[in-house]
């Protein structure tokens, strides 16, 4: 039993996630009391009874239309949010790029943010010093690394976030479509880097609407539709079915 669970990096069991949607969100007591009784909130089930086991070293793509729950699932895996029902187990150190500018302090420079961001992955100054040049070089940000990140473009944000996330020696990488904001050259470079990490045996969960990227990189794909897992299989099978249903091919 222990041995079996050892090669499972991510285990998702019967997970259901619902958000409470308020018609008008209130942070203040006066409004909260005012809203009492009037039924202004409803439950919106975003993920329904998801079961997913991901083996160590596997690269899995999550595909599905906008709003189907892919990012929500990634956030659950990253323990940023918690499920209402079910259980999630993660074996290994996680690094993630869920949203753009993951935890940057925008008033600080790129270089300062490398230290800050890496500290959230448990790396201290001593651990960052030997790899910082590598991170900066990978990002190709040049002199911009010394300017506050609030002056960065979306692509520059992504470059910095990606360069950090792939250099912190995590076992599991969660990547949410943010590559899309990179230019062609950098997207290519990211994909190469991800392949390299895959070869090193890292586990990856990748969300992307770019099916050719997904195909070139993932072994397995999971299709989510309106919060349900409708298909789980090899990347070619699942993406073909998905694109057919979308009427793209």
């Amino acid at each position, binding site marked *: 039993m222990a041995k079996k669970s050892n090669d499972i990096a991510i285990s998702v069991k019967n997970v259901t996630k619902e958000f409470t949607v308020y018609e008008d969100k209130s942070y203040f007591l006066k409004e909260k009391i005012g809203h009492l009784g009037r039924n202004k909130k409803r439950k919106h089930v975003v993920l329904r009874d998801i079961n997913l086991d991901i083996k160590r070293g596997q690269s899995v793509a999550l595909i599905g239309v906008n709003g189907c729950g892919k990012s929500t699932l990634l956030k659950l895996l990253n323990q940023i949010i918690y499920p209402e029902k079910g259980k999630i187990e993660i074996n290994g150190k996680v690094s993630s790029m869920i949203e753009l*500018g993951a*935890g940057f302090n925008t008033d600080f420079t790129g270089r300062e943010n490398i230290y800050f961001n890496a500290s959230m992955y448990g790396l201290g*100054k001593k651990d960052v010093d030997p790899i910082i040049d590598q991170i900066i070089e990978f990002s190709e940000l040049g002199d911009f690394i010394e300017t506050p990140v609030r002056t960065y473009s979306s692509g520059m944000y992504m470059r910095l976030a990606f360069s950090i996330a792939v250099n912190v020696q995590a076992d599991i990488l969660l990547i949410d479509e943010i590559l899309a904001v990179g230019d062609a050259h950098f997207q290519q470079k990211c994909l190469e880097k991800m392949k390299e990490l895959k070869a090193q045996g890292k586990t990856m969960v990748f969300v992307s609407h770019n099916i050719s990227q997904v195909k070139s990189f993932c072994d397995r794909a999971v299709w989510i539709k309106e919060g349900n897992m409708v298909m789980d299989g090899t990347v070619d099978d699942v993406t073909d079915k998905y694109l057919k249903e979308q009427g793209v091919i």
Partner: protein
Amino acid sequence: MKIIEKFKEIFKYRHMLTTLVKQDINGRYKGSIFGFLWTLLNPLFMLVIYSVVFKFVFKNNIEHYPIYLFIMLMPWNAFNSMLMVGTTCVSNNASIIKKVYFPREVLPLSVIISYTIQYCFSLIVTIVAILVSGVGLSWFALMLPLVMLVQVAFAFALILVLSAINVYVRDVQYMMTPILMIWMYASPILYDISMVPEKWQSLYKMNPMVTILTGYKDLLYNKQLPDFHSLGIVFGISLVLCVIGWLIFNKLQRRFAEEV
């Protein structure tokens, strides 16, 4: 058991904690000419005003009144800032809470550490003032860390609860200013505890800050041993409150990313 796991996890995130503390201390006065000096000038300014008003306008007969004020006001200021900043420490960090995982306790902890460091500086200023004024220092001052520990434990317990609730009900942060104002006047800072009428004394002493501030007064002003019995009770209560506070925080933190 869960608490031990939590300690281990927070230890893993110690670099984040130190980075946050450094950012806070460096960033607090980033772009201001006097920088860190402001953290010392503000309380000094407050002190001058209070000593003039309460010495000459509302006459009182506390000996060395400015020094008395100094000794009582500095810890109160630290407590005040810890609570004010601590209350918003989760809601003001929405951007990182929504995007990255880290044990959320790091945020209130960083506030406590950062303001404790700043408080140590103001204590140095207090001690210099005591020496310069001729009031003089005794060896009892070496026990200051004990009283500080009680104060910090008490503040941390409150911050855990306040910061978590403030995510859901933002009224909390606006209620803090009047509450702390009333609390300040209900504590022996501007006046001496002996000025409180006899019949109110027992009620008055229910306020943990009375015990804590009296501890500072004993060590620095009266130059005598503090009331270890009362301080011990307040410390014990604070530790229990820290555990309860953490349980509440831990329960509420599950939805932080959705609510902030």
